[in-house]
């Protein structure tokens, strides 16, 4: 009994990581209806940037965030203005195929720069530290990841609904032409949205790299987990994304408890079940 409870709790905490994968995806879809196939590879890029920072500066991975977050935000802004803005329009093919091409380029560039050997970010004693709560052993690192996810999502929620920048994001999302009439340059606003999304991706990449080993090929899998969290939670609902991540995480740890080979498969099945019975996700955005 306690083992199952443990699996569920571990799954909830794992869900925090998936919510971090998903938050950036959800943000850019919300603002510019862009689905970025390269999102997973950008998470892995952030992990490698974290690796280089820790190695070169000799700092802790969490300190490396101070370098990686602005770097990823900068990459996001340039990527959006230099490339992705040109793909936006009514046709879904250009954004899809361009981000797909970007994914292949990123993957192979990482392979070229860092080889295919698995890497890991070393966070020291925090990796093995744990708290004992009512017979359950909770890892400090998973707890921290989950807390980070909650903080990131609360932060995004605050930016969206309580700041001038968030007002601009929502306005551009509602009606690009009219937003332009109000003096907003949508190319710039989209660039800022991508910068914010990739800053979040930087956090996701570092937390991933501290938790497990990574190599250039695993980006696609991270995209899929993030995507599943978004769809399970319901499009356009950022707290739903956290719930979606948690459901995915719990499904995976329960699957792994039954048979270790089933971990990822069980998550996919949970996603397909939600898609079958609630195609709009469990917590779709309520329109006014």
């Amino acid at each position, binding site marked *: 009994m306690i083992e199952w409870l443990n699996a569920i709790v571990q799954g909830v905490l794992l869900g925090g990581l998936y919510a971090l994968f998903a938050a950036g995806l959800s943000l850019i879809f919300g603002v510019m209806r*862009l*689905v970025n*196939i390269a999102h997973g590879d950008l998470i892995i890029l952030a992990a490698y940037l974290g690796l280089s920072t820790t190695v070169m500066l000799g700092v802790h991975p969490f300190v490396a965030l101070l370098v990686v977050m602005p770097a990823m935000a900068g990459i996001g802004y340039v990527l959006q203005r230099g*490339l992705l803005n*040109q*793909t936006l329009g009514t046709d*879904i*093919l*250009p*954004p*899809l*195929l*361009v981000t*797909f*091409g*970007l*994914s*292949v*380029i990123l*993957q*192979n*560039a990482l*392979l*070229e720069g860092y080889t295919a050997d698995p890497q890991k970010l070393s966070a020291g004693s925090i990796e093995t530290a744990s708290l004992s709560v009512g017979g359950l052993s909770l890892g400090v690192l998973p707890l921290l990841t989950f807390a980070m996810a909650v903080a990131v999502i609360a932060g995004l929620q605050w930016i969206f609904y309580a700041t001038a920048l968030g007002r601009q994001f929502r306005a551009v999302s509602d009606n690009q032409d009219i937003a332009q009439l109000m003096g907003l340059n949508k190319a710039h606003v989209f660039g800022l949205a991508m910068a914010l999304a990739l800053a979040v991706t930087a956090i996701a990449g570092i937390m991933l790299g501290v938790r497990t080993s990574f190599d250039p090929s695993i980006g*696609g*899998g991270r*995209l*899929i987990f993030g*995507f*599943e969290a978004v*769809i399970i939670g319901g499009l356009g609902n950022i707290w739903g994304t956290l719930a979606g991540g948690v459901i995915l995480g719990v499904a995976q740890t329960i699957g792994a408890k039954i048979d270790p*080979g*089933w971990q*990822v*498969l069980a998550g*996919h*099945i949970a*996603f*397909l079940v939600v*898609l*079958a019975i609630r*195609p709009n996700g469990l917590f779709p955005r309520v329109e006014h």
Partner: protein
Amino acid sequence: MSAPVVTRATRASRVAMIVAALAVIVLALAPWWAGRADLRLMGEIFLYLSLACLWNLMAGYAGLVSVGQQAFVGFGGYMLFALTIFGGLHPIVAILGSGVLAAMLSVPVAALIFRLKGAYFAIGTWVMAEVFRLTFAQISALGGGSGTSLPVDVVRSLADSRSGREAFSYWLALGAAITVIACVYLFLRSRRGLALTAIRDSEVAASGLGIDIWRTKLEVYVVTSAFTAIIGGLLFLQKLRISPDAAFSVNDWTAFVIFIVVIGGIGTLEGPIIGTLIFFLLRETLADFGTIYLMVLGAVAIVVMLKAPKGVWGLVRDRYDLELFPLSYRVRTKKE
């Protein structure tokens, strides 16, 4: 006086037909004039050409942009192994059978992933392919995660000699490519094909004309899935060995295919042919550079998508008003 005449055929299309017929004859004789390595490469080219035509039909005509066709490539491959090893079927029968099974399987798959729109549909197809991969990795009778080889007696049942087998699997690949191109062409010329073109041009207008969009897309999805599985079976009949990672590789069976179609020209029949030729030309010259080659390919696809969204064939067609597969109607003033 002159009277306007509506035709599909043009002089270029008639010439193309004759050239194509001659080319098919020359290609069919390849086992007598080509070396072993060339024969193998050409077989691979034909199978990639088939995959490209099928993906183009889905994405370029039916608007179903899938990044998960490796699901059916791998499924077809695994069914070849399963049906020959456990069912004792002849490989050809097994490959055709895998097509039928893929068609049946694709219906419930479509029922689920058609709920996702646009780009989310694309990622949904990818999830499906992952489900397939992880499921086959769990089947220990097929070697689990490490895969299995095609038993010697199954391989022997194709032909006794090695050169005979190689010629046979080459002809299968050539035949598959011709069949796929012919089927896609005839389909697009049919009433259903016109409906598809109408949907692509405007979904709203098409549904106003009484076209059942969901059903038309489902038909395309089922048919392409079946053919894709058959091609998958042929691919792994060439390789003689299968594993989940090879069978359901997103790079090999989807990324390359997408690049072929985009570079050649999406939404045209000629595009995949041109794209396949360019792809193999690049691969044969740049393959030694490994990852650099893939980055170049990705970059070329991005540039084409942004600067010439109709691909290389689109550039040629706009410049010379050419159409090798007569699909569009032309109004001509005939001199009497």
